[in-house]
């Protein structure tokens, strides 16, 4: 919403400066988005006359003009406008001037080899209108003698752009803004005693609102003005419209626009001679069509509110008029409409037809239903003044009578909610200034809500009005109390944060990617999960919710590899989805590593990252998070996006209840399919929600501290065992031979090949044996040794290697 201080002063008596106005508008909730100066350098823009034009030597479309700007020498200006002809009076901007539209500062420039001193401007460049074709053509009769003088005579006011919140339709009119300002103490609202038409002439055109279900129009006021002569608007009106960036068109259009901008009362003018047998306001029937003023043809569905005559639809009520009945410069008789359309109906129709107009914007927010006659009076009298003619009586058709809303307001509520204390008198004054009618009862105020405030319906709305107008800056800051009633994070959240940093501390860089993804990538990782489509995605590349943490991560892995970064470790912690219902999601950590370890190292041989790197990362993280390594169980059942032979599945206890993670090489087919170029790609997933949160605190989970100072003995064993036998089980078997004596079981070699049968492997193990309560002699050790060998051979079918 654009306004000027000058225009505000039509409604506001104030002696305050514009600087304060800007602050005050923002303070009362009418945020100033920008202040645009139409007149900043306006003294630089001169009325000028082209005295000679010549074709540009190097460009067919350009001309070199000699321009008289009232100085001794002619200015040489290069210009591309077709209408730049000798004798034309136009507007010249010298070097140094800032073009209002583009905000660019002119400099002396060479254009295709010819130096141009300044430029000749179009209306659009000067924000005079949207006209971009050609340069300004000033009427000779008027400007002949003004060559060399400033074009902008009076200091044009600044145009102030406000962001009006959708609950405040009343502030879509200058008067509404003035009212708010006055209530806040910024001047006094002028009385608006609009002159009345006071006509005795009959309104001869019949107007009917049909009574039907879903009728979107409840009041239709109108008057006829006959024998008008539509013309150019007077200067004051044109200036006013231009000052807020509107383009003047013709007096009748400009006047209806003016009334709309001034008091937020949209009007529509019909050429009365083009209306066949009166107006009928009714619901449309499916298939009806009309050509609107935007020159587009609209096909209607059932139940849209249309203004029609006997021939058909004339316009969409409150949204847009039609070409068939539009006013032209030669229009003689007009019908002026001032109506009330239901916001809901407007919204529905405009949405279905994908139409957005100024009138629609206002009606859907709610127009003052009591402004119908004011609007007609104001506009009709102005039309008569400018275009002549005879005004008829006003005719108002209505299907409903307006009933003002009232509320009971408890004055104490204000302080309770805002913490602000203001006097009863001040409260009364603010409300009165805002247009409320008050009736004082004991503890309550009975308030009649002004007809222009559809947003107000309950006491909290009144509190907001008072706080806003009195000023939020008056509210005293209450320091927060530093007291905690509940832990900040629960166990799950603590685990989340712990794991996030634990993974990062293993060298992974955290990424945050969209929760949605490309189904192409998602399909690679979704297995048998349900695809969850977004029905209105921004693009197909982000068309589905991710079923896996890998779908985006691998995409960005690839993107980074293509940037020629080879050794990457990326991770993300976030949601993946299993269904489209709230809650059908889980938190997952995914990590991917590519390339090599110790690439280009002078001291170590490089090697590719492998599954035991990621296995270490995930296991170490779990241990750090408090899970017991000896209980972690691993098998090799994994999803199809991992290498079937080089991937594992993790459980945090031997009971294998919930899968807490996977690790392994990414399936070579996937790497091939999405064309990832790297020596190696390995990854892991941790399903955070499947990690059991121990009930006990970590300090309570720990065993009693117990160490032994007796001699520890070490024995090495080598077993020949089935190639598929899991080393994890071998360790388990040995450890449980005598948990009191066996301190560690470490595999230090695995060998297949020469001297070992094809389906076997050799595993070399170091076992540490130590007692808590006595030194062990050879005999004791020999017993343990024998037990280990016997048990392993018996339980696994392995043979000790001699």
């Amino acid at each position, binding site marked *: 919403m654009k306004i000027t201080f000058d225009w505000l002063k039509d409604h506001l008596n104030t002696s305050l400066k514009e600087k304060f106005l800007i602050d005050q508008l923002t303070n009362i909730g009418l*945020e100033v988005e920008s202040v645009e100066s139409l007149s900043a350098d306006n003294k630089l823009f001169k009325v000028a006359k082209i005295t000679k034009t010549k074709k540009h030597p190097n460009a067919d479309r350009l001309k070199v003009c000699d321009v008289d700007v009232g100085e001794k020498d002619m200015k040489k200006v290069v210009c591309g406008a077709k209408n730049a002809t000798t004798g034309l009076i136009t507007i010249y901007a010298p070097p140094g001037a800032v073009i209002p539209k583009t905000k660019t500062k002119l400099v002396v420039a060479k254009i295709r080899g010819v130096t141009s001193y300044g430029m000749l401007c179009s209306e659009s460049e000067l924000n005079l209108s949207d006209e971009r074709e050609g340069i300004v053509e000033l009427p000779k009769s008027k400007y002949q003698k003004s060559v060399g003088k400033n074009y902008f005579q009076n200091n044009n006011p600044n145009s102030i752009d406000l962001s009006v919140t959708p609950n405040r339709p009343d502030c879509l009119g200058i008067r509404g803004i003035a009212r708010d300002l006055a209530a806040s103490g910024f001047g006094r609202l002028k009385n608006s005693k609009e002159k009345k038409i006071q006509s005795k002439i009959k309104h001869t055109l019949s107007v009917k609102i049909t009574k039907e279900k879903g009728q979107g129009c409840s009041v239709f006021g109108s008057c006829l003005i006959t024998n008008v002569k539509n013309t150019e608007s007077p200067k004051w009106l044109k200036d006013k419209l231009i000052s807020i960036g509107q383009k003047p068109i013709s007096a009748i259009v400009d006047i209806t626009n003016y009334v709309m901008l001034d008091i937020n009362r949209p009007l529509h003018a019909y050429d009365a001679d083009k209306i066949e047998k009166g107006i009928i306001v009714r619901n449309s029937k499916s298939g009806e069509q009309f050509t609107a003023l935007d020159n587009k043809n609209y096909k209607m569905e059932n139940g849209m509110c249309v203004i029609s005559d006997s021939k058909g639809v004339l316009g969409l009520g409150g949204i847009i008029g039609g070409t068939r009945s539009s006013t032209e410069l030669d229009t003689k008789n007009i019908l002026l409409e001032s109506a009330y359309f239901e916001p809901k109906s407007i919204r529905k129709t405009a949405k279905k037809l994908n139409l957005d107009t100024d009138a629609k914007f206002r009606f859907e927010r709610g127009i003052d239903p009591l402004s119908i006659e004011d609007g007609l009076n104001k506009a009709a009298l102005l039309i008569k003044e400018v275009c002549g003619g005879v005004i008829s009586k006003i005719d108002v058709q209505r299907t409903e009578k307006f009933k003002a809303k009232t509320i009971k307001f408890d004055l104490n509520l204000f302080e309770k909610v805002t913490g602000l204390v203001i006097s009863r008198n001040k409260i009364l004054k603010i409300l009165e200034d805002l247009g409320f009618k008050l009736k004082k009862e004991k503890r309550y105020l009975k308030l009649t809500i002004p007809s222009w405030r559809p947003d107000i319906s309950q006491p909290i709305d009144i509190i907001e009005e008072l706080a806003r107008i009195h000023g939020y800056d008056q509210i005293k800051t209450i320091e927060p109390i530093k007291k905690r009633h509940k832990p900040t994070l629960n166990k799950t959240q603590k685990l989340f944060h712990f794991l996030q*940093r634990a993974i990062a501390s293993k060298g992974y*860089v955290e990424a945050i990617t969209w929760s949605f993804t490309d189904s192409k990538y998602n399909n690679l990782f979704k297995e048998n999960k349900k695809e969850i489509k977004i029905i209105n995605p921004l693009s197909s590349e*982000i068309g589905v919710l991710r079923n896996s943490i890998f779908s985006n991560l691998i995409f960005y892995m690839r993107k980074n590899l293509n940037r020629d970064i080879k050794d990457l470790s990326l991770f993300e912690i976030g949601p993946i989805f299993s269904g489209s219902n709230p809650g059908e999601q889980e938190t997952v950590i995914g990590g991917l590593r590519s390339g090599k370890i110790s690439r280009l190292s002078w001291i170590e041989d490089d090697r590719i990252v492998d599954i035991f790197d990621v296995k270490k990362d995930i296991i170490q993280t779990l241990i750090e998070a408090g899970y017991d390594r000896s209980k972690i169980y691993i098998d090799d059942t994994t999803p199809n996006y991992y290498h079937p032979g080089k991937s594992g599945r993790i459980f945090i206890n031997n009971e294998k209840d919930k899968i807490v993670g996977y690790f392994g090489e990414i399936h070579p087919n996937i790497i091939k399919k999405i064309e990832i170029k790297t020596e190696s790609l390995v990854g892991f997933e941790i399903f955070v929600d499947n990690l059991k949160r121990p009930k006990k605190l970590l300090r309570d989970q720990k065993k009693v501290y117990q160490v032994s100072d007796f001699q520890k003995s070490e024995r090495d064993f080598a077993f020949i065992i089935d190639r598929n036998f899991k080393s994890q089980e071998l360790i388990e078997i040995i450890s449980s031979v005598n948990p009191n004596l066996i301190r560690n079981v470490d595999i230090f070699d695995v060998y297949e090949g020469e001297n070992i049968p094809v389906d076997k492997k050799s595993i070399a193990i170091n076992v540490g044996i130590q007692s808590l309560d006595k030194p062990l002699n050879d005999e004791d050790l020999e017993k343990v040794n024998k037990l280990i060998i016997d048990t392993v051979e018996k339980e696994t079918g392995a043979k000790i290697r001699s």
Partner: protein
Amino acid sequence: MSDLKKIRDEFLSKLRSKLDLSQVNQLKTELFGKDGLITKQFKKIGSISVSERKKYATELNKIKDELQNLIISKIGEIEISEVNEKLKKEKIDVSLPERSIIRGKIHPVSQTIDEISSIFSEIGFSVEEGPDVENEFNNFTALNTPDHHPARDMHDTFYLDEKKQKLLRTHTSPVQIRTMINNKPPFKIIAPGRTYRSDSDQTHAPMFHQVEGLHIDKEINMGHLKGCLNYFIKEFFEVDKIKMRFRPSHFPFTEPSAEVDIGYKIKDGKIVIGEGDQWLEILGCGMVHPNVLKNVRVDPAKYQGYAFGIGIDRLAMLKYGINDLRAFFDCDYRWLNHFGFDPLDVPTNYRGLSR
């Protein structure tokens, strides 16, 4: 001169000359070997008269100790100097690079969430979360958003069904609703998380992060709201003074509503928060609308309080001088390494939010 004395003097002088290890060992054998001079003298003791024996033995032991100690220290000296000689040859170029380091990083958004949680923790807020997929009721209706509100449009919200019942939450405010429906007042929570809007350009991303705050109790008024946000902003930007402006605005779920601007200036191309006369909008807030309380069965006659919503990404951008929102989610390894945080840098109250 007795034999002993002779042996002593001879060997002492030999041992004092410059010798290598083998020469010392040679002398050691000559003295203490099987047929060594000293060994022989000990063997002689038995043949010496009883009256002489004691004196002789004392003398012999004294000389033995003297020579033995000298040999030990001589050997020690030689070994040290030999090691020193050897070490001189082992000198390496210590300026060669260390073994390769890989350093992980925490994303600036995650870091900022931790900072925010840490600040609000101090003044008694706890962290709540909710699902990314929400139903229409929690995201809009319960929050007093009218049926026709533009936010419900297809071009603002991502929907998962044609009936527009399931959607990706457009703010973290539905966590308010969930918290209030499932618990009893008072409430004092923040809810950070992912949020989604059908919007994508230089300054908007289809996914972004928000932290919602809610404080409901019997006597919580706008003064508390101001105090809370003033505290937060000051702590977050780690400045002593902050210029803040509460400006009336409109949201369906709060009333009175406000937008909060903070004062800033641009100095040497960088933004300085808390000074200057430029205003920057950073959050929306207000007193929770009585309709919202009614919708979650909290009695607005008994309870009232405030709520706020802050864009986390935007806060991170301001604090850490990041100027492109899109880069947050583009996963450029170089960007993540540049703007990311060391995992050991956990924001805490006692150690400070940032280094």
